């Protein structure tokens, strides 16, 4: 029971080309900015969009392979989908929504409804079985959608932005429940999301898509510690610099400036990551041990938990994390001139 896919879909002005392997019982999160191809990938796996090239194999069964003319339509794939906005059928109550996939597979009405009730019990919605979708809260609709997708016992479960339609207050609760329900599903689980928190909580492994390609894969911890795209870096709140490593720990950045890191990297293209906590700000040119110092101007100050994050326009631009007291003492308001300092030991350099 595993998914092995090479998905290539050519659209007007966009090509999705992704290789993916997911083991049963594993939850993989597909993350990336809007337009990265996340939903296209999901639709291709579900059979709602045919491949241009490549191959999708689930449990040894080929679902789509243009080269051999193989294409199973969505209704013949053992795939369950939880859609963005849930897409419950508005003319059916919760029970009949869940029973839908059982009925289409030839089960009788009575048996399908009984089984649907069991599923609703499993997601804690026994008392909402007769409710129409518009009478359900966002979190309840999400659980009905999950029960509906799981009821026909698929081997691959796809979730498209399962938490995007929820407001912030219910989100944490629903996310936790979803994580619980996902772990009880034995098949292959794939979650598309643009929210790194969802990915980190729900997934064992993250696949970062960027412009139709895999930019990075790894555990949530690996991805946030060593991001390979600016998008991930910004979401995980670290400073990411792309450049070329040369001797002596020097990294020539794309903007023309140079960073000095303590670690020697092999010459060639690298990423350098600096955590905002490791960036210090000064009113005058610092004369300490920091090997890297450059001037800039404060562009914005944002709250971040009990700290503040200061965006500084400079070459390269950085985000620094400071205390509220420091902001007050130094007068770090928008437009203030500052010096930025980063110790060489705080710069993590790795191959691009």
């Amino acid at each position: 029971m595993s998914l092995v896919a090479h998905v290539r879909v050519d659209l007007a002005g966009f090509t999705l080309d992704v290789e993916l392997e997911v083991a049963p019982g594993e939850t993989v999160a597909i993350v990336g900015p809007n337009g990265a191809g996340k939903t296209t990938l999901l639709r291709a796996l579900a059979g709602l969009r045919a491949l241009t090239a490549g191959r999708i194999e689930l449990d040894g069964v080929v679902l789509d392979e243009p080269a051999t003319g193989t294409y199973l339509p969505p209704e013949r794939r053992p795939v369950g989908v939880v859609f963005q906005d849930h897409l419950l059928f508005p003319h059916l109550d919760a029970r009949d929504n869940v029973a839908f996939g059982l009925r289409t597979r030839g089960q009788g009405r009575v048996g399908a409804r009984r089984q649907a009730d069991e599923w609703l019990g499993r997601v804690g919605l026994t008392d909402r079985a007769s409710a129409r979708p518009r009478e359900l809260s966002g979190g309840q609709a999400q659980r009905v959608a999950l029960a509906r997708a799981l009821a026909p016992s698929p081997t691959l479960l796809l979730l498209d932005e399962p938490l995007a339609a929820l407001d912030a207050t219910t989100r944490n609760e629903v996310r936790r429940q979803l994580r619980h329900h996902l772990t009880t599903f034995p098949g292959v689980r794939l979650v598309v999301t643009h929210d790194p928190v969802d990915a980190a909580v729900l997934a064992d492994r993250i696949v970062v898509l960027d412009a139709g390609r895999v930019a990075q894969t790894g555990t949530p911890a690996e991805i946030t510690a060593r991001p390979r795209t600016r998008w991930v870096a910004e979401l995980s709140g670290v400073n990411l610099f792309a450049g070329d490593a040369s001797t002596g720990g020097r990294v020539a950045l794309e903007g023309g400036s140079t960073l000095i890191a303590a670690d020697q990297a092999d010459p060639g293209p690298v990423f350098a990551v600096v955590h905002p906590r490791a960036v210090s700000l000064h009113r005058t040119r610092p004369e300490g041990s920091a090997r890297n110092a450059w001037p800039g101007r404060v562009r914005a100050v944002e709250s971040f938990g009990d700290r503040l994050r200061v965006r500084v326009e400079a070459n390269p631009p950085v985000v620094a994390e400071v205390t509220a007291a420091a902001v007050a003492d130094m007068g770090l308001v928008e437009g203030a001139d500052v010096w930025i300092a980063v110790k060489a030991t705080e710069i993590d350099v790795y191959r691009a």
Partner: protein
Amino acid sequence: MRVQAAARRRRGTGVPDRRPALPVLAATLAVTLFALPLAGLVWRAPWSSAWEVLNSDPAGDALRLSMITSLAATAISLLLGLPLAWVQARVEYPGKRIVRALTTLPMVLPPVVGGVALLLALGRRGLVGRELDRIGVNLPFTTAGAIVAETFVAMPFLVLTLEAAFRGSDRRLEDAARTLGARPFAVFRRVTLPLVAPSLVAGTVLCWARALGEFGATITFAGNLQGTTQTLPLFVYVKLEGSDPESAIVLSLVLMAISLAVLIGLRDRWLTAR
């Protein structure tokens, strides 16, 4: 907040409303134009002999025939119009706009012209009628002809209503149904059709009401033969012109009652301002 803002937008600025005399006068005249004929019908109705009229042979024939032909026309419209509406809403093909114009034409065409056109196409010497005649099919001046005329005039009401509904329904729900194991036809039957059900009912009733009231195309193409092609509107016209205006009035009332029933039945769609 939003409600207040909308109300404010409707009221415009804060200038106090005064009833503007001229538009109100014109509107009153317009309403009178609609209401007066109804009042006239009710006023002149021979209530005492109404039952007698309805039970008379020619009136009964017209009533029965009208029911048969209008229901048959509605059935054909559903059978052909439903797929047509679906194709127009969902399938892209060259010449689609021409097809739309063609299928809307009967709504704006004078029905008499429609009747003439039908005669030239399906009449004994018509474009296709010649061939039909050869295999023994004869439409003009038959009940089947009356049904064809009514279908021609009434089907667009169903098609346009349904096409808009198909267009407006969320196609992602159909995707969801596919992933739940429904084949395309099952998706149509179990998701698409229930979603457009209100429009389907409205379109069908409108179509039937239009078929029931059809006059011009029917009398031109199918003639005016009692029991064969003389439907209610034709009967009313003939009786009013001739010896028996009382029957005409009684059956006019019947038609009006049906129209009102349709309107009340569809009140949620047509009588509530959005």
